[in-house]
């Protein structure tokens, strides 16, 4: 399908899919893990005292 250069074209697309897919999955998994951790801490009764404290 890609002629004599298939050995270069196909790996290029595979690497791109793996890296971009990896980035998306990592971001989604991190989001879920952070939400679960926040819910766990709030369940333990830990409350944020100051709005600004999240910046540091």
């Amino acid at each position, binding site marked *: 399908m890609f002629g004599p*250069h298939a050995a*270069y074209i196909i790996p*290029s697309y595979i690497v*791109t899919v793996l890296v971009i897919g990896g980035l998306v999955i990592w971001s*989604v998994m991190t989001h879920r893990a952070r939400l679960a951790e926040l819910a766990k801490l709030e369940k333990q009764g*830990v409350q944020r005292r100051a*709005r600004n404290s999240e910046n540091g």
Partner: protein
Amino acid sequence: MSETAIRPASLWDFANPTRFLAIAGPLIPILGAITAALFAAGLWMSFNAPEDYQQGHTVLIMFIHVPAAWLAMFCYSVMAVSAIGSLVWRHPLADVSIRAALPIGAAFTLLALVTGSLWGKPMWGPWWVWDARLTSVLVLFIVYLGLMALIRAIEDPVIAARSLAIVTLVGSINIPIIKFSVDWWNTLHQPASVSRFERPAMDAAFLYPLLVMALAYTLLFLTLHLMNMRNEIYRRRIRTLRMQAARQAEGA
């Protein structure tokens, strides 16, 4: 303040992480859907583009290599602007923005290097040459990795934010070097074909798929950046809560 309560705000109000979360939450799935649609259209156009008379089918690599290279530089430019925001205005989200962009920029730079090597081998002969364009992009990748190591090495968040912003700004000198390397030095890499003042030196059959793919990559970056900024804000909240829990445990 509720994360869902949105009132008319000045630009400065967006510095509030809670407000950012309220805006980013509904925006991320919309951006994600548009990105997916653009990738579908861009890939369809790419695989239906004709063979290049010189490069044959390897022109297909261009549609993923060139946007990755553009985004590697764009991402660093976003970080440099955020670094100014962090140093000059102490914008609460500026440091969050730099940290969130770091892994995305490193990934796009890695993609540009790997797909460039896979494109260069059949076109030039070698997998790698130490010319100005390739070397300066490799330096960019090393800078990304160095910045990622830097933030892990400094425990204090204020010192880490300041150090990250300063080193990011110092590293931004590499961006114009990458951009103009093909004009300033004799390189094996071809000069700019699209981003130049004159008419693009590329046939429309290749230009349009490339532009759609570039737009898809850009929206992908924006989506991932918002997602990572949200994750970074949550990381800071978790850190604050853990510190409070530790203080409460000490006081009990």
